[in-house]
């Protein structure tokens, strides 16, 4: 039976089947045959989180850079979409305290253009920060990128004629279909998958494995780190832009630095260095955070008020779950492996995933 399943044709059929199931679920949801607005929103949010998490995994899991700047890059993408897609007629009402910059007040761009522009701006900013910051190692890089992400947020709070400051920008046009989110997620993640599977992706992995050896093999460390960092920022910007259109509003507090920890959690959970693991974790964590929401509501059992249930308990439970995961599943769901039919069938038939080791592995 295993041999049959390993057959290439059967795998192809399974893949096509999976795509059909996936597409029909989205179509049914999209045409409002099943689910409600709440479920659609969570799924769209999950798709966005998947893009940003995979982009963070590209930098952290595949290139081995400990970067925590994701929220800042998302903010750039989100604000670009917000600033350029709000209809001109609605602008004056939004910027009612500080008028919008007269040049920007004239420009309205189609969503896709604004979205790509947001990604490019995020990548450009990443390039500029990367030049000094990527010379730093692990912990220092994390601190520098985290600080940077906060700087972006504070700058956005203060350049009121461009971003409307703490009031935020409302009335961002929303998208009529889930395919915008899922389509862009598929394209973005597909691109990063192909990148990681290319010669450049191998160079990224080499840097993760051993910087000294990678450099000795002729890989320009700095160039490749900047490349990975900027591409990661580009897709974080895309994710931010999608977030803006999903929520129809942006304000600086959406991009407070704890947001980055959500993505960090997702990639640790899914497996640093596993794209499929990251995608699964994005959906599990995003919907999990919603499901756990009832912990935040006051709860009465038989007329007795349980004092534990109050706003904030959700995050306590979430943190405990996280600790358990880190203690018992340190490599996350998939480690550095990718999901494949073989892995699934091995798991289903109770067979331990065959390790790729030869006999007599050396001690090291």
């Amino acid at each position, binding site marked *: 039976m295993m041999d049959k399943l390993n057959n290439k044709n059967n795998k192809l059929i399974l893949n096509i089947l999976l795509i059909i199931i996936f597409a029909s679920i989205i179509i049914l949801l999209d045409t409002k045959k099943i689910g409600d607005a709440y479920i659609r929103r969570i799924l769209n949010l999950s798709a966005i989180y998947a893009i940003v998490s995979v982009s963070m995994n590209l930098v952290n899991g595949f290139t081995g850079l400990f970067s925590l700047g994701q929220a800042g890059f998302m903010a750039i993408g989100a604000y670009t979409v917000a600033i350029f897609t709000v209809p001109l007629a609605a602008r004056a009402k939004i910027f009612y305290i500080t008028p919008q910059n007269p040049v920007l007040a004239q420009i309205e761009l189609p969503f896709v253009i604004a979205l790509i522009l947001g990604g490019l701006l995020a990548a450009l900013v990443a390039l500029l920060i990367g030049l000094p910051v990527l010379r730093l190692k692990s912990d220092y890089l994390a601190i520098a990128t985290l600080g940077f992400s906060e700087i972006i947020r504070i700058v956005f709070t203060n350049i009121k004629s461009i971003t409307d400051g703490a009031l935020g920008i409302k009335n961002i046009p929303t998208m009529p279909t889930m395919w915008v989110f899922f389509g862009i997620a598929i394209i973005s993640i597909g691109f990063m998958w192909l990148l990681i599977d290319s*010669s450049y992706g*191998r160079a990224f992995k080499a840097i993760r494995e051993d910087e000294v050896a990678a450099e*000795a*093999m*002729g890989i320009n460390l700095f160039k490749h780190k900047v490349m990975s960092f900027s591409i990661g920022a580009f897709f974080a910007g895309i994710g931010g832009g999608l977030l803006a259109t999903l929520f129809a509003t942006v304000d600086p507090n959406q991009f407070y630095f704890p947001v980055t920890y959500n993505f960090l959690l997702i990639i640790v959970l899914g497996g640093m260095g596993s794209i499929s693991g990251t995608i699964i974790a994005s959906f599990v964590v995003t919907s999990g955070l919603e499901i756990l929401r009832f912990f935040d509501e006051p709860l009465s059992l038989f007329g007795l008020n349980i004092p534990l249930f109050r706003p904030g308990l959700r995050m306590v439970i979430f943190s405990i779950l996280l600790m358990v995961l880190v203690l018992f599943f340190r490599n996350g769901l998939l480690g550095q492996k990718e999901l494949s039919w073989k892995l699934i069938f091995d798991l289903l038939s109770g067979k331990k995933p065959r390790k790729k080791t030869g006999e007599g592995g050396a001690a090291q």
Partner: protein
Amino acid sequence: MSVLKINNVTMQFGGVTAVNNLNIEVQEGRIEALIGPNGAGKTTAFNVITGVYSPTKGNVFYKNENITGLTPDKITKKGIARTFQNIRLFKNLTVLENILIANHLRINSNFLSSTLRMPWSNKEERQMREKSEMLLDKLDLLRLKNEIAHSLPYGEQRKLEIARALATDADLLLLDEPAAGMNPSETMELSSFIHNIRDEFHLTIFMIEHHMDLVMEISEKIYVLDFGQLIAEGTANEVKNDQRVIEAYLGVEEDA
């Protein structure tokens, strides 16, 4: 012709002089060795050649080109490849991936055409794979191509590290203690292996080694370093009988 010329190189770390006024000329097509007691500055000399350190004084020439102060990746591109004293493979990647990574430095496609699988990039990738498999085949490692690097037996890991260095299309190979941790029979095997790759790939080999049998057998010229100073150079026999070398490194036989 000298392939590598180290000219009056001094390397200081704070107040410590690790290498003092070193002069070495490695001739094309030969196997030459650098020996000396622990802490003599051998690996420091290698790190200066490969650009890990920029020397305090002096210059390094490769094929008459001054390469002093270039970064390691640029020096590798010029044709100098190295291995490390404590093996530094890309441990969690496969044998083939390790070799493919060493081909990346000669890539012509940019990341976009590589990612979008443009025909010319696909062709380049295919050629890279063919070349890598051919190399693995020549070194009898092809059967292991899908194994994870750290799962290989120790001797094969050493071999893979040398293969990876060769994959950069190097002309000069620097081996830092290739026989470390090997038993006598493995060492003998390594000796013929080094000879074979030198002939097959038209290499110049410059190595650091502690196994005196190996050094004496295959090196055409030996340099002896002690406390950062070159104390002797010459053929195996010349060095073996040099009084200073015996005192500093080889040791005096008590009953002699």
